[in-house]
């Protein structure tokens, strides 16, 4: 295998796992409460900014633990004092609330930290290369990012499968009203799930903000792709979200590494000039950012329950 292929696969894996860390929380929230939380990516951004702020005081390692906890608390407050109040008005009111919240958080972040990027950097130990492949260093933080995401996947799955609360959550994912009838406090369960989901987004932000860039546009830019992961992965399935994240990460990365015009990919010769030639000459890398959304549309049409969903959307 060429080193470009290996690197592309590794990069795709790392990006996919970051996506998973970000969207796993939304999968839980969306499946359980039916709330299309537009502010989910804003929690990701908050995690990054709080991580940046805290790391100046406590250092990076403590910051990436405290920051998600704070974001989780903010998430709990949003659910308890916002979503629960408007719940009676139905999903549209909830959706509008999170929609407004996303803008609010973005403006607040700009007021507090300014409009340009902040200097949130990883500690040197994570920046050092883990190994060097054919002259390209592979930084440790990518491996670290993968490890954290896989660790969280394991924790969430074990929690859902084996603990009593986990079983309740699973039940409430499918039949929330029945669980309520049985005497369990479903609203409190909602708050907890919302908090955990937000905290996972906060964790993704604290790591992703340092690895990529921490700026006010980061939520807006990553927001839509999270919904793709949730829908393609399927309602109620953390594992589905995992697979969907990896597919999206791999597709995007490989499309860049092995770029060629569409006509060549489909096995045709060069279309020459004029007519639709320009369209056929669009390269794979240029359309790579569209592919997730294409996948979203196709999933909704042909397989509404996604990869591993428990019910149709």
């Amino acid at each position: 295998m060429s080193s470009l292929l290996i690197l592309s696969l590794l990069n795709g894996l790392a990006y996919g796992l970051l996506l998973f860390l970000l969207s796993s929380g939304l999968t839980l929230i969306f499946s359980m409460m039916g709330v299309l939380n537009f502010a989910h990516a804003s929690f990701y951004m908050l995690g990054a900014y709080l991580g940046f702020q805290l790391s100046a005081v406590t250092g990076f390692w403590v910051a990436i633990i405290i920051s998600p906890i704070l974001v989780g608390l903010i998430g709990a407050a949003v659910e308890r004092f916002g979503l629960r109040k408007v719940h009676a008005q139905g999903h549209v009111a909830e959706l509008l609330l999170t929609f407004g919240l996303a803008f609010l958080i973005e403006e607040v972040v700009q007021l507090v930290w300014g409009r340009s990027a902040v200097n949130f950097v990883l500690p040197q130990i994570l920046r050092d290369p883990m190994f060097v492949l054919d002259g390209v260093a592979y930084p440790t933080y990518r491996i670290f990012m993968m490890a954290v995401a896989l660790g969280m996947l394991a924790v969430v799955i074990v929690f859902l499968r084996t603990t009593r609360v986990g079983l309740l959550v699973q039940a409430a994912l499918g039949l929330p009203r029945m669980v309520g009838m049985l005497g369990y406090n479903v609203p409190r369960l909602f708050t907890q799930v919302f908090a955990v989901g937000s905290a996972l987004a906060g964790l993704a932000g604290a790591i992703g903000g340092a690895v990529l860039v921490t700026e006010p546009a980061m939520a807006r830019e990553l927001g839509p792709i999270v919904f793709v992961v949730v829908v393609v992965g399927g309602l109620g399935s953390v594992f589905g979200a995992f697979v969907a994240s990896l597919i999206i990460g791999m597709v995007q990365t490989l499309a860049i590494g092995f770029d060629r015009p569409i006509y060549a990919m489909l096995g045709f010769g060069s279309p020459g000039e004029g007519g639709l030639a320009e369209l056929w000459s669009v390269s794979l890398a240029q359309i790579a950012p569209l592919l997730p959304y294409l996948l979203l549309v196709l999933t909704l049409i042909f397989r509404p329950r996604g990869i591993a969903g428990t019910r149709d959307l």
Partner: protein
Amino acid sequence: MKHVIGTVAVSAALVFAPMAQAEEPIRIAFVDPLSGPLASSGELGLRHYQFAVDEINRNGGVDGGRMLEVVPFDSKASPQETVLLLRKLADEGFHYVSQGNGSSVSAAIIEAVEKNNSRNPDQTMVFLNYSAVDPALTNEKCSWWHFRFDTEVNQKTAEMTDFIADNKDLKRIYLINQDYSFGHAVGDAARSMLGEKRPDIEIVADEYHPLMKIKDFAPYIAKIKASGAQAVLTGNFGADLTLLVKAASDAGLDVDWYTYYSGLLGAVTAMGDAGVNKVYELSEWHENIDNPELAAFAGAYKEEFGDDWRYMRVKFMFGMLAQALDEVGDDPAKVAAALSGMSYDTPLGQAVMQPENHQIIMPQFVTVLSRDVPNDLEGTGIGRKTIREFPAQSAVVPTTCQMKRPG
């Protein structure tokens, strides 16, 4: 004694100020994105405008004591919105419109101004462009009423490739640009000019990536590495530049970067030490140019806004506008005639608004990011250092403009 003089000056200003204000101020419409994703660069431009105008007003204004006033309008980065806005500005009697973010918006303004000025020859408008650099605006789309105060892509690339051509060790270069009109203009210009000046340099790739959508540039970096390039030329700005350079540094990619926008908002902060001694930029001024007048001006801005002064061309633009207003008064048709072909003495040398296409030529500098500089950007300890100076004349490039003077 100094105290007394100061007091006298202040009271004189107080006495004379009301007289100067008796006449209406000359209004300049600032049309740039003030909401949405590009709001931060729009607001940055607006602060520059207000600061540059304040300086002129403090020194007595223009045309025998009239003040200048900048009135902001939100273009929403949309040509359609801007065309509607222009109609409103014409109704409200604005003579001067200025914009810089987005060449598609500039093209729409040129068209709207042309239309207005041919229908209402008594109510003409002049368009001052401070940043939109698509070559078309001073070539096939050129207009008598449009004046560009920034060098366009072909001019920038001509100087940058001159600089690159001097690097005898360079054999393989990688072009990566944003997939839209500006990025393609940079890529095309670089390819043809390098081919002319240094046919021995192999252009190993001419890559275009989606605009402002890539979060992780690692896949591109792997490709650049695999290509064996020694240097990368890119017109990228904003996140597309910072993420690219950061990803390269993390992958240990050891190449030189030839850029146009690494001094913009947030870029140096995001790149940090990854950019030091690696990132070259072409610009009309930078914070370590040893010129007391401009340094004091930039320092006063930093004092007031806590942020670095970036676009010295905004100061030069208002200097030229003031010179025209002083000469001919507030008559847009006469101002346009005065600006066309105007020579203006900047503290760094002469700038000329070329009459054949209304494109400025001015001295420019190739810089490299360095820690070994007296002044830094964004408090990073990293600033720009001059590597090479280009006189205004080096920015002369051929134009296809057929300038039509009205009347």
